[in-house]
C-alpha cells in the first residue's frame, strides 16, 4: 500500500467513524485523538490532542479509565484512538534523555485565564532548573496567589510537557504533584535538578 493510498484510507475510515459518532451518540464537534504509552519509567500515560494541539497528558491506570475520563470531560466531542506519533516520539526522546526539551504544541485555550497564565509561566522553566510556587504566581501576575498557583499546577492537564514538576516549595521541598510525589522526584532526578538548589 502506497503512502497516498494509506492516507486516503485513513481519512475515509475517520469519516465513517465520525459519522457513526454523530448518528449514534450526538457527538459532532472537532474530534479528540488519543493514544496510550503503556511502559514509560513513570507508568502508563494517556495522551489526547485536538486540532489546536495536545490537551491531555495524564498518568492513568488503564486505557479504559482514560477513555471514560475523556468522554466524561468532553460531552459533545467524538474521541478517536490514534497514534499521536509526534508526541510519543518527543516523550521517548525525553525519557531516554536524548532531548529534555519539548517541541510539542499544547492547547490550553479552554482553561480559566489564571490557570493558563500559571501554566504559561511554568512552560518557560527549562529542564534542569526549578522555580517556587511564589515565583510562578508572580510571573502569572498575582504575587500573593501562590496557593492558587499550586492548585492550578495540580490540575495541569498536560503534565511533563508543561513541567509543573519543576515547581517546588520555597524551602526546596517537593510540595505536591498530581501524579504522586515519587514521579515528581523521578522526573527532577532524570533532569539533574534533584535535590534542588534554589
Amino acid at each position, binding site marked *: 500500500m502506497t503512502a497516498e493510498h494509506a492516507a486516503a484510507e485513513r481519512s475515509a*475510515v475517520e469519516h*465513517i467513524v465520525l459519522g*457513526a459518532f454523530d448518528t*449514534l451518540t450526538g457527538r459532532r464537534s472537532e474530534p479528540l485523538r488519543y493514544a496510550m504509552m503503556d511502559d514509560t519509567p513513570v507508568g502508563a500515560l494517556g495522551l489526547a490532542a485536538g486540532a489546536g494541539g495536545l490537551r491531555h497528558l495524564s498518568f492513568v491506570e488503564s486505557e*479504559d479509565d482514560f477513555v471514560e475520563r475523556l*468522554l466524561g470531560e468532553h460531552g459533545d466531542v467524538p*474521541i*478517536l*484512538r490514534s497514534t499521536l506519533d509526534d508526541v510519543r516520539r518527543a516523550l521517548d526522546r525525553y525519557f531516554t534523555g536524548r532531548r529534555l526539551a519539548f517541541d510539542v504544541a499544547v492547547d490550553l485555550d479552554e482553561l480559566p485565564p489564571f490557570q493558563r497564565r500559571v501554566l504559561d509561566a511554568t512552560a518557560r522553566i527549562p529542564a534542569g532548573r526549578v522555580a517556587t510556587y511564589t515565583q510562578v504566581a508572580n510571573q502569572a501576575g498575582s504575587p500573593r496567589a501562590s496557593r492558587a498557583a499550586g492548585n492550578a499546577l495540580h490540575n495541569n492537564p498536560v503534565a511533563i510537557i508543561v513541567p509543573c514538576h519543576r515547581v517546588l516549595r520555597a524551602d526546596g521541598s517537593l510540595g505536591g504533584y498530581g501524579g504522586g510525589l515519587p514521579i515528581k522526584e523521578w522526573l527532577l532526578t532524570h533532569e539533574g535538578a534533584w535535590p534542588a538548589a534554589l
Partner: protein
Amino acid sequence: MTPADRSARAAHRIAFLLAKHGDELARHIRRMVRDDDSAQDILQDTMIRAHRALSRLAAGSNERAWLYRIATNTSLNHLRSQTREREALRRHAAERETAVAPHADGRQERDEARRAELWAHVARLPARQRLALTLRLADELDYEEIARRLGGTAATARANVYQATRKLRLRVREP
C-alpha cells in the same frame, strides 16, 4: 431508570466502544464491503448489536475479538445478496488492477481477461472461504488475525484459505 437515562447510558457506552475500536472496525468493514456508505451503516449496526449484546460479554473476555466477530457477521449479512456481492468484487478487482503497473506490450489485455476470470471464480466461493482468502492475499494477514476477525480458530482460517486456493487452481486455466 427513565428512558432518557437509558438512552444517555447507551450513547455513552457506544461512544466508549467507538472511541476504542471504531477506527479498526471501520477499516475492517470497509475492506469487506468496499463501499463507504454501506460501511458506515454496518459500523452503526455493529455498535447497536454490540450494545444490545453487551450484557452477554463475559467479564475479562476479549472485547476487541468479540466486536470483530459482530462486524464480520454484520458485513456478511450485508454482502449476502448476490448482486451486492458481485458489485463489491468488481470494485475490488478494479482496485487491484490500478495497483498493478500496465505492461507495454499486448499482455495487458490478456492479463485483464485472466484477472476478471479469476475474480469471477472467487465470487463463487463460499463466503467464509472467499473472505479468508481476501484477508490473506489482499490484506496479508496471518491466520491468527484472520481467525480473530472472522471467528473460529487459526486452523479453520488456514483450512478455508487452503480450500479456496485449491478450488481456484482447479477452476482457473493455466495460460
